[in-house]
């Protein structure tokens, strides 16, 4: 996709002559573009900076609706814990703004740009919510969906609609914000989003269990995380790195030890953090050597986990993101990895497995999905070449009634199938 200066040319060609791209800089222009596309039944690939272009099923949609012009913060009211911004506002810009007031997006948005082979810092608020992403704090604070209060959008019908509002407590009408979150732009083009923000923690510490040298400690790691999460110490991150992944950590203490580590994060005011750290050390000392990372090292460590830094290198490997009941994490991962070259990083107390596997024609989809189905969960193919993501279902395939519901929702919001068609499921 290229953007050129002549996008504002008053002598714009007619839609019929349109080559590739439409650029919309406000809601009215989005509306015009979608109406126009709907009347001609022309499919649109909706994107801003394209930082997540590699997420989801690979599609070949000729025309791009470039919404990167929809940026800008409408309002940010720290005392009300609310921010409203255009869909293409950079996540980094929002985070900087919040940091000035010691606030944050509590669901810890990951920056998956590098993991997907692109640049860091390109993600937008709209893309973040459309993919319903969340980082390690998901276990305590929820995902993007849980912080998404309201929006304005243009549906595939070529109509502007809004839902939700700017307050947390709101049960007025169906919760369409939930429907938009994670819909990958297949139902509507969001133009403005309103999200809940929260205070950033004053202190961050990480209790680190270093397991003995050599050996597989995935089960032990999950057990330790389960103990920590079941404690009253308000753990806000629980991750396990096998030794091979830990040694690539940017935190030298973790990288140099050559051992598997399990990490538990506590956040809050200083006295609280100190108290909970001590309590966790006592609880978990039985598993291995215990160390503590303070704010700076903690921040670096959890950024690595959040952005799956360990799998950025070696872009040839395929990446799966698997969500299972937390206690099943290590069992599922080790079964999938049995006799198969690859690695597993555990987040969400074992409830999220990042798998890096050697390339295979079916991306090992059958084996991954078979083991996930046995315990209940969801597996998404996060990184693979486009031809693989066109062939192998990226999301857990739906069937029967759920597939019908998906189809009917799509038809209700985008009857001509012009918005990101095929991005989630074939024909949706």
């Amino acid at each position, binding site marked *: 996709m290229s953007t050129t200066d002549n996008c504002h040319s008053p002598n714009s060609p007619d839609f019929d002559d349109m080559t590739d791209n439409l*650029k919309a800089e406000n809601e009215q222009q989005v509306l015009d573009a979608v109406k126009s596309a709907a009347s001609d039944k022309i499919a649109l690939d909706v994107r801003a900076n394209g930082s997540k272009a590699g997420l989801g099923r690979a599609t070949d949609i000729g025309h791009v609706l470039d919404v990167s012009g929809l940026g800008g913060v409408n309002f940010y009211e720290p*005392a009300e814990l609310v921010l409203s911004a255009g869909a293409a506002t950079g996540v980094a810009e929002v985070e900087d703004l919040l940091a000035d007031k010691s606030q944050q997006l509590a669901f810890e948005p990951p920056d998956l740009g590098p993991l997907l082979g692109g640049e860091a810092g390109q993600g937008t608020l709209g893309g973040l919510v459309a993919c319903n992403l969340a980082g390690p704090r998901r276990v305590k604070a929820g995902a993007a969906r849980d912080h998404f209060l309201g929006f304005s959008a243009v549906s595939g019908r070529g109509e502007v609609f809004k839902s939700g509002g700017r307050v947390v*407590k709101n*049960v*007025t009408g169906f919760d*369409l914000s939930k429907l938009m979150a994670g819909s990958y732009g297949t139902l509507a083009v969001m133009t403005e989003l309103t999200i809940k923000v929260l205070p950033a923690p004053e202190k961050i510490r990480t209790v680190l269990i270093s397991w003995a040298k050599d050996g597989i400690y995935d089960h032990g790691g999950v057990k330790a995380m389960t103990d920590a999460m079941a404690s009253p110490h308000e753990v806000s991150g629980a991750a396990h790195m096998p030794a091979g992944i830990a040694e690539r950590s940017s935190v030298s203490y973790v990288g140099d030890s050559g051992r598997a580590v399990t990490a538990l994060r506590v956040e*809050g005011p200083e006295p609280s953090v100190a108290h909970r750290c001590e309590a966790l050390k006592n609880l978990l000392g039985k598993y291995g050597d215990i160390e503590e990372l303070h704010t700076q090292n903690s921040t670096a460590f959890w950024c690595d986990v959040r952005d799956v830094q360990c799998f950025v290198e070696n872009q040839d490997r395929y990446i799966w993101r698997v969500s299972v009941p937390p206690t099943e994490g290590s069992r599922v991962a080790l079964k999938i990895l049995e006799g198969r070259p690859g690695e597993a990083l555990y987040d969400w107390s074992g409830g999220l497995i990042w798998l890096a596997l050697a390339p295979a024609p079916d991306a090992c989809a059958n084996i991954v999905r078979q083991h996930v189905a046995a315990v209940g969960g969801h597996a998404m193919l996060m990184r693979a070449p486009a031809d693989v993501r066109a062939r192998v279902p990226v999301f857990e395939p739906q069937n029967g009634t759920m597939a019908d*519901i998906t189809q009917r929702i799509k038809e209700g*919001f985008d009857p001509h199938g012009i918005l990101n068609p095929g991005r989630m499921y074939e024909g949706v």
Partner: protein
Amino acid sequence: MLMPKPDSDVIARREEIIAAMRSIVPGEGVIIDDDELRAYDCDGLMAYRQLPMIVVLPKTTQQVSDVLKYCHDNDVKIVPRGAGTGLSGGALPLADAITLGLGKFNKILETDFENRCVVTQPGVTNLALTQEVEHAGFYYAPDPSSQIACSIGGNVAENSGGVHCLKYGLTTNNVLGAEIVLMNGDIVRIGGKHLDAGGYDVLGVITGSEGLLGVITEVTVRILQKPETAKAVLLGFDSNQKGGDCVAAIIADGIIPGGMEMMDTFAIQAAEEFVHAGYPQDVTALLIVELDGPAPEVEHLIGRVETIARQQNARYVKVSESEDERQKFWSGRKAAFPAVGRLSPDYLCMDGTIPRGQLAYVLTRMEELSEKYGLRVANVFHAGDGNLHPLILFDANVPGELDNAEKFGADILRLCVEVGGVLTGEHGVGIEKRDLMGEMFTEDDMKHQQRLKCAFDPGHLLNPGKVYPILHRCAELGKMHVHNGQLPFPELPRF
């Protein structure tokens, strides 16, 4: 309140429908006598009553499925019902509909402490969930004031809140999975013990859908460790503005209290007279701020809240010194509704949410409205999340007063929307706020919501007459204007 006109054809088929229901739900699960039907003639919004055509109380998911399939095939409407404690009339029966009660789904199916979740049938009460897990130090966080009686299925249908929403979220943030029966009888399972489900967030839209999309037959909720300790501080201010400013200052300082409740003069006095909670009587606004968590955190934050409150000119500051005293602080707030109710034959409880910073303005405007309508109003306010509960006092025996009170209530909700808030924070739209939906949503907004309805229940058989003032036929909603001839759009840059 105008409800859809009963379908006389369906009522004429009542005997035949009863026979069909009895073949699906044997025994005493089909209720047809007026005396017994009367127990189901309203929910918590008792100003509106209607005898259901039939009440059916299934025991299994298969029975629910069979009932819905029969009704789908025979064009019979269904009103789902949990414990009937809802405050917006969402479970108000219809004369030509079956009320489908889920009360017999009263078993907790699985408690999984390691994965920190509980799988339960929908008829289990909110409080029973907490009771089931508290021996292991856990609890279920959302705590609507009716938690002793309300069912978890109803909580999901209404996306119920409570006093701890700012810190712990609403129902929607605490539900992991569900089994749902659609109107055509199909049974679907969504989510589970894992966090990410993929696909459209059907669980997210079912939550808070007020029984319009499907019937919930199983729920998986997440449970949390109970905070180690909790302490409350009672703060008095000589104006609502100062109370509101203090709330903002606490949040701006980075503190998210477990609960933060505000009461106005009328509510303070009524509560104090009723339960003697020890509230100061010479303040205009009273704030209860509760901090929960590890003891060192609570001590630390209570100190900071105290400092902030003094900076914000609190004229009364009292920290709870014991668990008894903390409970006493809450006793007045928790008794506020009955305390106000004692002063009046009837009252209406409203439920708007506003941006917190608008509190003083909204209360001033509400006083003006109170004078205009000649009706008293008391205010209790979930100050942390901006959810306002004005209680409008009236006497239903005085002709015209109910009507007047409802008009007053509608004006209050319009005011909430005007300042950037919403019609309902936790009670739901139901029938109560149905006709006000247009205050908040455009026609296109509501049509998009109804397109979701069409994906689940195109025949509009589930809970009709609730939430939306006009139900457009799905065929009509499906039509699309074609804009040929209007092209090109001159405003649109192309390249």
